[in-house]
């Protein structure tokens, strides 16, 4: 077979990324609710995404887990239907509704067929506006949540995450798991569910997107049916979280052959002018591609792990820069040393022009790959609205990545990467590591 390096080179230099071409319109209902829509009539169904800002961080003091449990109960009985009746009707319509909550938002993702759309919307509305919170459902779902919390307490990854979060954010909601603890969840009552529901379901924090077989007019009417009678305001948003973690190592002994390490320090906000430069930097250092420095050094060169990553976590109330690795107890100290070296090297020497160019090519190329289904497009659009991005953002996004200069990345590396500020939480039986300051 002949060599084709030359051919590859030609393709590389001429390559332009696929252009994301998504035709979004803004729909405002007669009642004043807005949504973003991509009309795509080729398949007779639609995807609908609804989000409420605040999420589990709206939990009242001492009621940690209330929003999560309430969210789990939305599909467990509504209006004149108990849990089983609600499930049977949903199945008969072949609709699917998923309700989930995270730190910053409560998300509802729905998909339903064009031909029974009105029935599906009526059912979805009942779950949002008229959940029953029956005591038997509450007890049953609470047992499921408690089972999950107990499992997390034995899972090395969850143990590490919980410890890092607690050190970083203390008593702020970001300092604990949104599922709550065995103690707080066991104490939750039906009244707590009603309060958590009133806290979050309001128009002042609502975002909607839809994609699929529906016209703007029909969507407008649907928005009013579905969400028109929500109250205007909900609970006030929680305060910003203050990051309290500093450099060091915390070892949590746990009987397992492989240690898990979570690490990180302060990050950068999504609306910071340097955010894209930080994304490019992270792509080079420890982003998802096989080419990242961390993957090359820890996995490919030394075989110390199956996976090592770093990631920016810009949430509404605090931003962190975190990472994780899993490595055998005998080798995790070496893995951590390599990660610290790479962090140090990037902070002081920056990254190369070639690495930056490769990272930008990867990011601009990967971006359009995700707009490949109604469900994905709807989900992406609702997320864009929560970030405050303009409706014409998608075709301009890659230009923003391209605009990042080598100087930008080096400058951001200089102030964002803080090797001495990294805190590693290690769960396992690591050899040659103990709690305390970072080793020299």
């Amino acid at each position, binding site marked *: *077979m002949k060599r*084709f390096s030359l*051919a590859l080179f030609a*393709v*590389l230099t001429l*390559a332009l*990324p*696929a*252009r994301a*071409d998504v035709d979004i319109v803004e729909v405002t209902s007669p009642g004043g609710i807005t949504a973003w829509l991509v009309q*795509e009539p*080729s*398949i*007779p*169904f639609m*995807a609908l995404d609804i989000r409420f800002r605040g999420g589990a961080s709206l939990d009242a003091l001492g009621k940690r887990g209330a929003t999560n449990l309430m969210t789990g109960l939305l599909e467990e009985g509504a209006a004149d*239907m108990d*849990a089983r009746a609600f*499930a*049977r009707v949903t*199945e*008969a*319509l*072949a609709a699917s509704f998923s309700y989930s909550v995270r730190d910053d938002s409560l998300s509802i993702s729905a*998909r339903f067929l064009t031909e*029974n759309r009105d*029935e599906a919307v009526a059912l979805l509305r009942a779950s949002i506006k008229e959940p029953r919170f029956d005591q038997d459902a509450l007890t049953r779902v609470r*047992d*499921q949540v*408690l*089972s999950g919390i*107990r*499992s997390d307490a*034995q899972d090395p990854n969850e143990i590490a995450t919980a410890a890092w979060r607690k050190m970083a954010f203390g008593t702020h909601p970001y300092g604990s798991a949104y599922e709550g603890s065995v103690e707080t969840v066991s104490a939750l009552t039906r009244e707590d569910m009603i309060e958590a529901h009133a806290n979050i379901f309001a128009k002042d924090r609502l975002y909607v997107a839809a994609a699929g077989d529906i016209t703007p007019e029909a969507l407008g009417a649907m928005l009013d049916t579905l969400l028109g009678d929500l109250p205007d305001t909900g609970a006030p948003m929680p305060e910003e979280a203050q990051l309290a973690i500093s450099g060091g190592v915390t070892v949590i002994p746990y009987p*397992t*052959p492989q240690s898990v390490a979570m690490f990180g320090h302060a990050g950068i906000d999504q609306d910071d002018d340097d955010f894209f430069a930080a994304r490019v930097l992270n792509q080079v250092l420890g982003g998802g591609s*096989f*080419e990242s420095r961390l993957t090359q050094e820890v996995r*490919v*060169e030394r*075989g*110390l*792990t*199956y*996976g090592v990553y770093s990631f920016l976590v810009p949430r509404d109330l605090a931003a962190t820069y975190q990472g994780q690795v899993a*490595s*055998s107890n005998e080798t995790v100290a070496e893995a951590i040393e390599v990660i610290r070296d790479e962090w140090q090297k990037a902070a002081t020497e920056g990254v190369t022009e070639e690495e930056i160019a*490769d990272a930008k*090519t*990867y990011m601009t*190329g*990967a*971006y*359009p*790959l995700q*707009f*490949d*289904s*109604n*469900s994905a497009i709807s989900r992406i659009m609702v997320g864009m609205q929560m970030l405050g991005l303009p409706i014409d953002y998608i075709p301009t996004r890659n230009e923003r990545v391209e605009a990042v200069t080598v100087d930008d990345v080096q400058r951001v590396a200089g102030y964002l990467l803080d090797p001495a500020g990294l805190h590693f939480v290690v769960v396992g039986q690591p050899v040659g590591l103990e709690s305390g300051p970072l080793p020299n």
Partner: protein
Amino acid sequence: MTALRLAFAALLAAWPAWAAADDQVTTFALDNGIQVVVVEDTRAPVVTHMLWYRVGSADEAPGVSGVAHFLEHLMFKGTDELASGEFSSVVAANGGRDNAFTSYDYTGYFQRVASDRLGLMMQMEADRMTDIAPTAAEILSERGVILEERAQRTDSDPAALFREQMSAALYLNHGYGTPIIGWRHEMEELDMEDVMSFYAEHYAPNNTVLVVAGDVTADEVRALANEHYGVIPANPAITARQRTQEPPQRAERRLIFRDARVAQEYVTRSYIAPERDPGAQEKAAALTILAEILGGGTTSFLAEKLQFDTQTVVYVGAWYRGMSLDDTSFSLVVLPAPGVTLEEAEAAMDTALTEFMETGVDAEQLDRIKMQLRASQIYARDSADGVARRYGSALTSGLTVADVQAWPGILQAVTAEDIMQAAAEVLRPESSVTGYLTTPEAEGGPTQ
């Protein structure tokens, strides 16, 4: 409720209007034996290129468990044309993503890129079909990686270790009893010769299925595939897959897995079950629906009895994986409620199963399940990648394109009698393993 039920009945009557087959799918073969499937979807200017090999961990010889998966990792090292790691870096530099997967019955490699890069992906994928060249140092470091992968996915997770023991007990004579990633003591010994002989024996065009999904036409795929893959000669030594088969199973097996890391105890039971066979998928269709009836969500029979009526368990599930080259399994799991022992949960599950065998299938529930199966054909069209994976796994698991396209109709034709007959045939204690996942000090355990 009544209004909804009426609407549902009207919908059933109107159904055939859009119950068309996979009209977006084209299939053909190249002269050297590569089977090609094209799934057209022009909604986004991207394409997924997948090459599936008809070989998986269940095709490994005794003593080298994990070699199929180890080879999958080493396919990303160098060839005579590409430097080590160059494959993935070229994909990344073209804004694409790539990865691979190994199963019992197949090994697959895929890239997702802008559609005008399809030829480049084929060029590189065809290259590594014939002459990978891992170095001795790479064998060592990558063996470290797969051992860490096993540590992460299996050894660190008591539920994963338990599943491994369950499979080993369920299969008396078949490779499905050996974990895909391999037994650690054999993985530690895998060497260059093990990998390269497995590669030489199984990697050739006449042992592959090429699946391309996205913004591309069948004609474009045909031309590119002929250019890049069509020039590779077939390996005549590759013939129909020969595997050891299960003997009749005659003894109920039970096992207890104790691990201090277990937070939620549970009981699971797996039965040997027939898989989807070419031209004979009816029994598998009945079992697919049986799994939904018994454990498919909150309206399922076991959830009704055990979660709602008696509150004996916090969760119940049933699974059947029909896509399999050889005998597959039908599994049940119950998570006992607080204060309920594993023995009590198992007894409640058996009582409910006995009741099901007596009362039979609820007609309304069967209607709802069939409605969802029909709708899933519509929803499935939203993901060209999903359609691509469905064809790739079917064609490497012994099925044909005709079987894939007949499957939705066969599911709709399943009757209550078919389901009960399949249940009676498969839910036999003699061909089952029942396992308890528990803690060393758990009270009320099966040892008392």
